[in-house]
Every structure is written in structure tokens, then in C-alpha cells.
């Protein structure tokens, strides 16, 4: 089925966006990225030097995977805007995954700083993909501010708790005019599948792969989970019933 993911006019065949942080080695990262089938992968601009040889960026370039700079580790709108500008300069892309976090214990997004940074970056010509709370109102405000996607969390970054408020994710999907990308909280492949069944356009994950015993195998599981969930979303789940209904009609 031809079903590309469209973000800001760009088309991707894979609906799995990967993060690179926490991978045990470059070699394992390379194998996991290939197994995931991803075409878009985030890199933390504060944690790498774009000019350094043999880095994650070289690896992405060698695999033909588009690098999506993020503003991980920023606590204020101002910091995030600075990092985004550095990334644009260094990587020659005006795409940015915007993260403005409130505290390091929860790593939850700071909604006020996030919206402020989003407005400034959109005004400066960036394609902004904001990591946001699973708050339908904030998601709508981000979209209205001109963001090219909204990326609500399923649960806190790295927690592996899955999607804690499926109802909110449904509400966000229902009213969004831009792609909704489930970001953060994925623990295993079924979580990714559920996100897609809820109507998310894509899933972004990192820890569930990088910290798995076998990252390459988990990356493949995530690829299949996302693909399966997407197909199920299109196919349409059956209505839940209270009692059984025989799948073949009873003989009369």
C-alpha cells in the first residue's frame, strides 16, 4: 500500500523516526537504524560536533537517513532558539525537533516556553516539530503557531511506560491538521502499534531500542509494530461487544 508520511511537503516511506541517544556503540546504532527502516533520525545538537569525522552524522549520511536536529537539554525558549539556529548553520537544514523541558527529573515539556520558542522559530522560517505534552489544547495552539507537526508524549522520555492517556492522543489526532507523531514513552513494539492504531502519523522512539538487550532486534520489532499498527488503522478495528459473536454463522 502506497501510504507515505508527509511532513512539510516532504515524503517518507517509513513512519518510524529514530533517536540516537544512549546507543552502546556506533556499530550497534548503525545496525539498529538499518533494521528500523527509518528515513528520519534525530540528533542532539548539544551532544555532537557536526564537523567531526566518524560521527553519528557520517553514519546517517552513509545510510541515506535524513538527520533531524533537536534541541534536547534546553530549559528556556531562548536556549532552544539558539540551538536551533546553530543546527541550521551546522547541518544546513531548517527542520528542527523542538524540545524545551521543564526539569531533568521528569523531562516533561515546559508548555509556555515551548510555545514561545515555536512562535519565534516559525517566524524565523524553521520547520518546527515540537515535542509536547499530551494536551489537546496545547497541540492545537502549536499547530496554530505554524508548527509542521505536533509530537505529543505517550509518557515521560525513557520511561517505557507506553501511552498513558490514549484518550488525549485520540483527541489530538481528531482535531489536528498536521501530522501527529507519538514521541516518548514507547516501551515495546505493541506500544508503537497502539500509537499507530490511534491514528498517529508516525512514532519517534529511542530508549526502547537503545537500551534493549538486542537493539537491532528491537528496532526491527518496532518497524513491524509501526507498520502493523498503521495497517490496522486503515483497516478499521471492529466494534467492541459485550458478548461473543460466532465468527461463522451457526448451522440451522
Amino acid at each position, binding site marked *: 500500500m502506497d501510504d507515505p508520511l508527509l511532513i512539510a511537503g516532504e515524503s517518507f516511506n517509513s513512519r518510524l523516526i529514530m533517536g540516537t541517544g544512549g546507543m552502546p556503540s*556506533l556499530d550497534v546504532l*548503525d*545496525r539498529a537504524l538499518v533494521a528500523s527502516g527509518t528515513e528520519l533520525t534525530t540528533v542532539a545538537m548539544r551532544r555532537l560536533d557536526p564537523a567531526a569525522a566518524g560521527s553519528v552524522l*557520517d553514519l546517517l549520511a552513509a*545510510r541515506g537517513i535524513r538527520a533531524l536536529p533537536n534541541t534536547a537539554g534546553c530549559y528556556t525558549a531562548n536556549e532552544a532558539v539558539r540551538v536551533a539556529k546553530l543546527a541550521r548553520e551546522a547541518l544546513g537544514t531548517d527542520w528542527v525537533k523542538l524540545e524545551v523541558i521543564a526539569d531533568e527529573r521528569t523531562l516533561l515539556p515546559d508548555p509556555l516556553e515551548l510555545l514561545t520558542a515555536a512562535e519565534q522559530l516559525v517566524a524565523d522560517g524553521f520547520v518546527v516539530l515540537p515535542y509536547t505534552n499530551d494536551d489537546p489544547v496545547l497541540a492545537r495552539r502549536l499547530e496554530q503557531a505554524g508548527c509542521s507537526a505536533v509530537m505529543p508524549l505517550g509518557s515521560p522520555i*525513557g520511561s517505557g511506560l507506553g501511552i498513558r492517556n490514549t484518550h488525549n492522543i485520540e483527541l489530538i489526532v481528531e482535531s489536528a491538521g498536521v501530522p501527529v507523531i507519538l514521541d516518548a514513552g514507547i516501551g515495546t513494539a505493541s506500544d508503537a502499534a497502539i500509537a499507530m492504531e490511534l491514528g498517529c502519523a508516525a512514532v519517534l522512539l529511542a530508549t526502547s531500542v537503545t537500551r534493549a538487550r538486542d537493539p*537491532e532486534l528491537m528496532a526491527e520489532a518496532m518497524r513491524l509494530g509501526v507498520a502493523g499498527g498503521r495497517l490496522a488503522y486503515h483497516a478499521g478495528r471492529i466494534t467492541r461487544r459485550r458478548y461473543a459473536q460466532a465468527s461463522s454463522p451457526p448451522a440451522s
Partner: protein
Amino acid sequence: MIVGGGVIGLSIAWRAAQQGMRVVIADPAPGQGATHAAAGMLTPIAEAAYAEREIFALGQQSLLRYPAFAAELEQAAGLPTGFRQAGTLQVAYDSDDLAVLEELRALQDSFGAATCQLTARECREAEPMLDPSIRGGLLASDDGSLDPRLLATALLRAATTAGAWHVPQQVAEILTEPVTSAEVGASGPGAAGAGTNAAGADPGLGRASGVRFADGSELAAPAVVLAAGWESAGFAGLPAGCAPPVRPVKGQILRLRSTATMTAAGLPPGLLRRTVRGIVRGSSVYLVPRESGELVVGATQEELGADATVTAGGVWGLLRDARALVPGITELALAEVVAGLRPGTPDNAPLLGPAALPGLVLATGHFRAGVLLAPVTADTISRYLVTGQSDPLWAAFRPDRFPSAGARPRQRAATTQQAATQGAATQGAAR
């Protein structure tokens, strides 16, 4: 000819000179690279990671050699190394960290490594300065530590005493010479044998024949050992495909010391008896005590190229986590902050043995484990230089294990198709 005078190059120089080889070691500032920053933990168990069983096994092998290595070295050099075998205590700070530690214990078990599980109370009996909120720990009693700066000084002394010649110069270029077809595949004992040993070498590459120094002078050598850490990749003269895939991985590290007031009050030097490694709210930190009372706190791991800047964030993160584990550190003097550049490889494992270029031997890419792996690297590389015999311990660490990115063998059939389609895009990619 050994290029690079860190703990790896110096250990090889010492062992090779001991066996009667004529050894030259080139480094304008021996022991001032990654060695200078290193904490000197000898703890293969605590460093164990999934999919890194071979690195763990090599580390164990090296740890076993350490007591004799250090004793012999201290004797030969007449200098201390700070070697001690007091063990490593790994502790978890909160319940999430305890779950991670439990996973690590299962991994260590599967590697056949013996660690002893301790309750929080037992951890604090072993190390009374630990914070009461510690949740539990693992004790590896055979682990050791030493002072890498003392080690490097002792190694240089021992190597030169054994007859090695230290040239305090930067190597600018690896020299090569053509080989005749008759020489290809010829092999014999001694350095000349090592020089022609690489199996299936492309005769078009020629052979490593010496080095050119920064001042333009040249030195011929039948075998050239690259032990220059992360800089090993950057020498002029290395034919395409022969440069080892090493990159700098920055680590910031702190040294804390007792204050004059503490000493005057007669307090015992040092807050800890043994190395303490902690997982603190998901991040890792270690504290390595020295006999002198110095406490080494490390280390960040940053992919920032050849940048060795000490940053506020790096120091803050280390102190934050170290203080969570051992609140008493705030009273110590912050004596030093340095950043070093570890030689990282794509799979975190070292590159050991003959390179594709005949006459060139690699002993680099030791990443976080250079100090730990020095004895086993020195023993096996020096034996190769003398006899031309590759060591079975190198099986997982052959320098030629990284084909070009696209041609890398796949582990699982289910993903081969993807690798094949993506491989097309990666042909010719520099690695």
C-alpha cells in the same frame, strides 16, 4: 618503531625492549593524551555491556595479568604505579537505578563473572560515606585501580632502562616503500617477519618502512606500531583504507583532594576504600580513591570531535551525581578538571594486530579501557613483533573487521534485503 607514548605504546615499548628488540618510541609528550585524563579503573566486570562479551573477556585476561605486570614494572622502574586491588562497589541511587543494576547483575552472571549482591546496609558498612538513600549494590572484589600518570612515568623509565629509545617528536607521516612480488607472502621470525605478515595484502600498497617526524627527519623501521590513540587515524602516508577507524570521544574528569584543614585535623586521607561506581537517576558516575587521598570523579562521554574543552555542564553533572552518592565530597578541594579524548571505534573494541599495510601493526582504539588492556596488549603485540605470531586473543579485534559500511555482514536474514537496498547508497562512503 612505536608511534604514540600513552600507556599502550609505552607498555609495548617496555615489553619489546625486554625481549631484546631495538625499540624507538615517538611522542613529544608521553603520557599526556588519554592516559593523562584516565581514572585508572581496572574493572572489566563493571564495564560489561551486552554484545561486548569479547571486550569483557579480554579485560578479564588483562586484569589477571595486572598484579604481576605492576609488580615487575615497579621493580624495573623503581617507581610506584599506585596499583591496588581493593575491588569495585557498584551502587544504585533510586529504585529505577536498582532495576538497571539488577539487569547488569544478570548480564555479569551470563558472562560468568562473579559479583556479590549487597543490600543497602551492607553497601554502607563497606563504604560508610555513601549516602543513606543508596538502594543496593554489587561488589566485585577482584577489581583494581592504579594511577595512570604514575603508570606512564614508570613505563617510560622501564622502557628506556631496557634499551628503548624515546624520541620526543611528533610523527608527521608513515613512510612506505614498494614491495617486490617475491617478498609478498614471505614470512619469517623477527621484525622482518612481522613486516610481511598481513595475509592477502595488496602488493600495490607497499610496506610501512618508517616514519617522518615533524621536523622533517626520517627514521627507517621494519615494523611500525600505531599506538597513538584517537590520532592514529590521521597520519599522512597511510594508504586509503589503512587508516584505523578511530574517533575522539571526549571525557571530562575531576580530581578532588583533602584540604589542608582536614590533614591538619588528622583525618584519614580519602573518603572511600575502593572504587565506587553509581547509577544516579539513570546516569553513570564513578569515584576512584587513591592511596594519597585523591578522589577521581568521572567521566562524561561526549561526541564532540577533537574538542577538549572543560565545560560548566560537564563539571556540574559529575559533581551532581558524585554528591548524590557521597555527600562528603563537597568538603574536598577541587584540585583539577581535565578533558581527555578516548580513541573510540565503531564497536567500542580495540584494534589489535597487523594492518592491511604490511609492516604496520595496530594497537589502538582501546576506548575506555586503555589502562586495563595495557598488559594484554603489550604482551601479545610485543610477541608478535618478535615472532610474527598473531595471538588467538585478537580474534575479535582484528583491524580488518570493519569492511566498508555497506558491505558489513548482517547477523539476521530478515534484514538482509534492507541492507542490500541501503548498501547501494553507502558505497564509497568514507569510514
